[in-house]
């Protein structure tokens, strides 16, 4: 297996797992939605700064480098 296919498979597994978690949350299972989890992470100043800076870094990394 090449490194490229390994990476694509790993990312596909992450994507499917994330979608499964979101689906479970929306069906009322004992898991919050991604939005609820992210919102909860922003309750504290440190968490808020981390989430906002991570968002800003993603933009610079993917769109402006």
């Amino acid at each position, binding site marked *: 297996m090449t490194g490229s296919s390994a990476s694509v498979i790993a990312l596909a597994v992450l994507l499917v797992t994330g979608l499964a978690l979101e689906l479970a949350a929306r069906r009322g299972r004992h898991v*919050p939605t991604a939005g609820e989890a992210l919102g*909860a992470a922003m309750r504290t100043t440190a968490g808020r700064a981390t989430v*906002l800076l991570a968002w800003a870094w993603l933009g610079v990394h993917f769109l402006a480098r």
Partner: protein
Amino acid sequence: MGEHAPVVSSQRIRRFAFLVPALACVASVVAFGELSIGALVAVAGTGVLVTLVGLRGRAGAAAPRVGRRALPWAAWLGAAVSWELVALFDGDVPTVSDLADPVLAHPPARGAATVGWLVAGAWLLARPSSRPAGS
């Protein structure tokens, strides 16, 4: 209607205040293209602006607690970050950005991705900063 007018007006002003730099950011990213100082200034400037507005407005301070129920998401995030670190230090394994670069090289895709990034930023700023009255 009269008593709601100032609220509606305030919401419109807020939306307009976000829309103007957002449109300028998308236009700059599409026009200047990848690896350009113009796109870097536009994206980094918008990122800093949204981060400061979010910190100043305490976005998310009143979001509901989720406690340990969020552990599956924490594990998911840990797995994603771990894989990125493996890819970063292993020259043969491409990172997410290596895989995304060929797609984002096209201006329409880059513009659409910028709009998606800005929508995510607006969503983060819209997290509740104070509890609604009566709750």
